[in-house]
């Protein structure tokens, strides 16, 4: 299956040369932002903008790739063939998202190889949520509903991100994510209407995934140093707390359909601020997981590294074969 990404081969990434700013380039960049237009790979852009994007897009790609693991954990044990098929397709979509996003990042001049090396060396970050274990089948539902749901709240505004290849990749990603969220909700709905054990499994999964999914929006606004600049660059459109509040408002209604509860008694709508509020989150835990001390950090990275290292001989074979074919073709032409 071929994956068409937005990184069309015709577009050449601009080499990073921070020191030389062509005449009028900065003004043109500012103008594009002011018009809310797209910045394309051929356009001049400030180094800091480029770096921020590479960091954000590659982190996003890594999250898709590491995020395959907690769900792949249940592919072989899925309790019906239909569910097995849906779960396989979902995890496969995530590999596809990783591919579009790596391609978008490559238009900024950073090769996928380098991003992969950074990931397996533990130098790059990915979403902390994937460092939590999937302990029951209901976690497949909770991840779809809460984790993919939070990701959609974060990602829909990114479809309008100022960097063209990123925004366009996000349009595709969001379409598939909304399908993922619906299938997650459907898993939970089936469990909630099932046996007592199934219902208990569903509630337990929601209890475990609720707080980590709220923390996916990032630290509170007054503790989020990079947000302001990203908003000025039209990469980020809403603050962490705005998006989190919006998400809480959605799930507080949806959980009623399930006939289950959220493990938070403090959720309420603040009329003055016109915002949903939730109970305190354990930001210490968030920082611990971010710092590599979560339940599955080591396991996830080890698995990615192992797959990469075990596959080295295959990639080398493919490269050697391609080189031989190219050489043979050259000889034929000559």
């Amino acid at each position, binding site marked *: 299956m071929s*994956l068409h990404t937005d990184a069309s081969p015709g577009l050449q990434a601009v080499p990073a040369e921070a020191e030389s700013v062509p005449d009028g380039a900065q003004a043109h960049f500012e103008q594009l932002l002011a018009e809310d237009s797209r910045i394309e790979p051929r356009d001049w852009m400030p180094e800091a903008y480029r770096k921020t994007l590479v960091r954000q897009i590659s982190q996003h790609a890594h999250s898709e790739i590491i995020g395959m693991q907690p769900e792949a954990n249940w592919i*072989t044990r899925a309790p019906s*063939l239909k569910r097995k098929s849906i779960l396989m397709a979902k995890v496969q979509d995530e590999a596809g998202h990783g591919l579009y996003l790596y391609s978008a990042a490559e238009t900024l001049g950073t090769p996928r190889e380098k991003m992969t090396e950074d990931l397996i060396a533990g130098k790059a970050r990915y979403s902390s949520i994937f460092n939590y274990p999937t302990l029951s089948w209901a976690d497949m539902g909770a991840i779809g509903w809460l984790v993919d749901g939070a990701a959609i709240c974060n990602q829909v505004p990114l479809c309008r991100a100022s960097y063209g290849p990123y925004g366009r990749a996000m349009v595709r990603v969001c379409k598939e994510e909304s399908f993922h969220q619906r299938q997650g909700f459907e898993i939970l709905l089936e469990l909630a209407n099932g046996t007592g054990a199934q219902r208990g499994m569903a509630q337990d999964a929601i209890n475990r995934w609720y707080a980590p999914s709220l923390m996916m929006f990032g630290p509170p606004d007054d503790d989020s140093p990079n947000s302001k600049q990203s908003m000025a660059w039209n990469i980020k459109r809403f603050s962490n707390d705005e998006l989190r509040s919006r998400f809480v408002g959605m799930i507080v209604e949806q959980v009623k359909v399930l006939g289950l509860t959220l493990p938070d008694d403090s959720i309420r709508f603040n009329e003055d601020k016109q915002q949903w509020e939730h109970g305190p989150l354990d930001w210490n835990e968030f920082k611990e997981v971010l710092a590599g001390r979560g339940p599955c950090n080591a396991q996830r990275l080890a698995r990615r590294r192992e797959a990469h290292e075990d596959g080295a001989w295959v990639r080398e074979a493919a490269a050697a074969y391609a080189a031989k074919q190219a050489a043979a073709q050259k000889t034929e032409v000559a």
Partner: protein
Amino acid sequence: MSSDSATRITPGNALRPEDIVAAGNKAPADVAEYALRLGDDSLILAQRLGWWISRAPELEEDVALGNIALDLLGHARSFLSYAGSASSRTEDDLAYWRREGEFRSAHLFEQPNGDFGRTIARQLVVSFYQYELYTALMSSTDSTLAAIAAKAVKEVDYHRDHSAQWVLRLAGGTEESRRRITRALELTWPYAGELFEDDELAVSLAAAGAAVLPSSLRERFDAGVGAVLSEAELEVPQVPAAPGGGRRGRHSEHLGYLLAEMQVLAREHPGASW
């Protein structure tokens, strides 16, 4: 997923397991037993291949092996739904509630994934076998089997291409990859023979035009695989055939573990729906 995915279901050419159930055609007992063989082959291999997703040598290969696993699972669900119609059992009744000795898959499908070379060697044999099988089965007098085969053959054609392309790359890549694919083919080849063995059921169903006589596929299989191996400058392995017995429910040591993992959750919750 991109629009040219082999697994994309579009209205018009869709043949879902649900459609087979809805059509309400009840398989005769012997056809059901035959469908069980084909369904189990694909189910067991899909279960094996599903393991690769998130572990493949390249992201593109996570996608490709995932796609193949999904196709096979789709074929399995169709065959099992039809097989179950004879005894009022669902695809899940058959997948999750049969014992090891009741599975009818050939030994090749349950062989461990091994390294990527082993998986590709197994894919080579399976995809070329299934392509010939489904091509012939499209002419079955049993309209449900013919319809499942007509859909499956298009997908299996991609699987053939995938495995052949990899055999060429591994054989013509590095010394290491050539050593590995050569060894992988030697380890895989003993299990090819079972696919082409005739037995009473196959002979009688083939005579009636409902099934394909396994031995009749051997020549075209040898020609197809032989062409790939020859282009890769590899020899057809000269190794003795393994005894087989899967069609009678006699399996290798590997199947029990695979089933234990596949069935564990469903069996913890008898009667539950998911």
